[in-house]
């Protein structure tokens, strides 16, 4: 693994590439490899490839290389390239591939195991009362005391209660699992254990007292079955309260901060375990947070690099790597140096603002003008001019060229260009035309970065999450708990605070007590 760690340190620079060029890298290097690249990259070892001689530039024309690779004498002129070359996949890409692979296999077994156990138990529980009633009839029918109306009434009540139980269980439990959590739900497990013990004890009693002794009091047996069904309904009520109702009342306020750009949100939660709170936070993350855009982070990184780039430390007093002394010296020197990077930042940001506003103005004007060329045909008019009619897609394609350039420039300035392909823009345009949207409604999607859900899944950068917590993830939320939800590129730091105890007192104001006086300041001339 140490060799792999080496490559990781070499790649510290490359992992800061924007997603766009990294993808180009990956695709380029994939084109070059002759062997079919299946997703077997789950082995996180270095990839050794055999290629034509590497005399190309770094961000080279990857597409053209694919054809050049068909060299006849590649056997003689090959070079073995290890993981330290620019053309193989970086460590991060391998990690990403392996995680994508784990997505589809592995943890499903645990989920299905839980589901099957619950289903079997449920079926057993459902059939138990019926078995209680039927077994005496089957086994010792002749000995049973006849019980007429009372038993029939009880049969009806058992039937309806079972029906209600069935509908209730279907409503509460038969749902698509929407998430895969690291640990078992404590309450669900407790409930299953409780049900199992309960039914087991009933069967035990039944087996010992009724089956063995062949009790003839059929009414008593039926009433026993009815009591079982009643108790099951109460357990169902308990399940609702424990699993659904208890966490509805908000008790905690949770602050979620994204580590890369500091965007933060607050949410209200009830009594939940840490893993369920993490689930709620993630569900809201996809809706509330703007999409993670690595292109926006390059500016601050280059500034950070410039801060430390200007200073070099030379050890004059002799050998010996006094690392802490060096860093302290650098910090002191950086503090003393009068650098004007704040000035640069201010002017750069002001300039960027102006440029964005200008491009935005051009874009809005272009789109408004483009939309004026389209008019919707009413039903009567549709018969009159059949020749020129266009469906929404064609209409979109017709007006798109006039606004394409302005839109492209705006997206480039705000660094959103990789989130919108031409196809997606055309689709959105035809969608807007179909639904009679104004130019402003069409542009709403492009002017500001939207939540992650709005974009294509490939661009999300955030599909596989890890919950990092100092407390056990099944323990409940407490005041001051901090946990981190980490994905490959960034993490969400979650801070839990308790909603304070609110002391509310009342005060009665008599409606007749609202009285007023005039406050004068008159001036008299004498």
């Amino acid at each position, binding site marked *: 693994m140490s060799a792999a760690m080496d490559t990781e340190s070499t790649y510290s620079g490359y992992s800061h590439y924007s997603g766009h060029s990294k993808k180009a890298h990956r695709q380029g290097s994939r084109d070059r490899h002759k062997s079919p690249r299946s997703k077997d990259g789950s082995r996180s070892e270095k990839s050794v490839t055999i290629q034509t001689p590497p005399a190309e530039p770094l961000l080279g024309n990857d597409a053209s290389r694919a054809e050049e690779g068909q060299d006849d004498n590649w056997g003689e002129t090959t070079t073995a390239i290890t993981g330290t070359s620019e053309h193989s996949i970086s460590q991060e890409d391998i990690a990403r591939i392996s995680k994508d692979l784990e997505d589809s296999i592995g943890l499903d077994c645990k989920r299905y195991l839980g589901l099957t156990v619950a289903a079997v138990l449920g079926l057993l529980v459902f059939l138990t009362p019926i078995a209680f009633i039927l077994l005496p009839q089957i086994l010792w029918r002749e000995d049973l005391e006849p019980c007429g109306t009372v038993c029939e009434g009880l049969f009806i009540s058992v039937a309806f209660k079972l029906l209600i139980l069935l509908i209730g269980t279907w409503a509460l439990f038969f749902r698509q699992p929407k998430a895969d959590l690291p640990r078992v739900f404590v309450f669900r497990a407790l409930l299953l254990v409780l049900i199992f013990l309960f039914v087991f004890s009933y069967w035990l009693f039944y087996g010992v007292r009724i089956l063995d002794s062949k009790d003839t009091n059929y009414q008593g047996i039926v009433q026993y079955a009815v009591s079982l069904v009643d108790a099951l309904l109460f357990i169902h009520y308990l399940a609702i309260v424990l699993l659904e109702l208890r966490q509805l009342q908000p008790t905690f306020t949770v602050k979620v901060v994204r580590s890369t750009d500091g965007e933060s949100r607050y949410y209200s939660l009830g009594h939940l375990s840490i893993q369920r709170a993490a689930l709620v936070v993630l569900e809201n993350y996809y809706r509330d947070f703007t999409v993670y855009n690595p292109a926006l982070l390059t500016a601050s990184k280059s500034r950070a690099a410039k801060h430390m780039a200007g200073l070099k430390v030379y050890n004059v007093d002799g050998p010996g790597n006094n690392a802490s002394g060096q860093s302290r010296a650098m910090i002191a020197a950086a503090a003393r140096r009068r650098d004007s990077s704040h000035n640069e930042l201010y002017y750069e940001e002001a300039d960027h603002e102006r440029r964005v506003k200008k491009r935005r103005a051009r874009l809005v004007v272009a789109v408004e003008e483009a939309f004026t060329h389209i008019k919707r045909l009413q039903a009567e008019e549709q018969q009159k001019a059949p020749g020129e009619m266009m469906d929404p897609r064609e209409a979109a394609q017709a007006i798109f060229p006039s606004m394409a350039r302005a839109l492209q420039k705006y997206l480039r300035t705000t660094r959103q260009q990789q989130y919108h392909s031409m196809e997606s823009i055309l689709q959105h345009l035809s969608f807007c035309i179909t639904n009679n949207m104004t130019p402003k409604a069409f542009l709403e999607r492009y002017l500001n970065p939207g939540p992650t859900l709005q974009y294509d899944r490939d661009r999300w950068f955030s599909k596989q999450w890890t919950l990092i917590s100092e407390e056990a993830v099944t323990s409940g939320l407490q005041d001051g708990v901090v946990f981190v939800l980490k994905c490959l590129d960034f993490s969400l730091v979650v801070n839990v605070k308790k909603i304070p105890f609110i002391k509310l007192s009342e005060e009665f104001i008599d409606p007749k007590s609202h009285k007023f006086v005039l406050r004068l300041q008159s001036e008299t001339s*004498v």
Partner: protein
Amino acid sequence: TAAPRAWPPRRPWLRAGLGQLLARTDTEQRIEIHKLRQGDNLILGFSIGGGIDQDPTQNPFSEDKTDKGIYVTRVTQGGPAEVAGLQIGDKIMQVNGWDMTMVTHDQARKRLTKRNEEVVRLLVTRQSLQKAVQQSMMS
């Protein structure tokens, strides 16, 4: 109008600069105004504000916003009050011996505009006076 009588004699430093006022020890000033006859009325040439029935917080001239005394809010140019040395912002403490610190606005007006009086003698205090004396006492 009659020639001004001396009661006490008109001190020359009534209109003097601040420097000479530093010689005084009390913060009050006596001003004698001779009313001017205009038609049927005798006017003094200034306006008053304040009074115990008024809102003291709206008084722009008072230092303490709970002071309900009578203040001079305007002095007409060239009128008898200006000639006598009354300034805008002065607080009137006495008029002809009658106290003006605890009167209503209307009572103050009546005391100043008595028909048979031609001369009113005011005891006023002024913030600039008070500050000047305080400064001279401290230095």
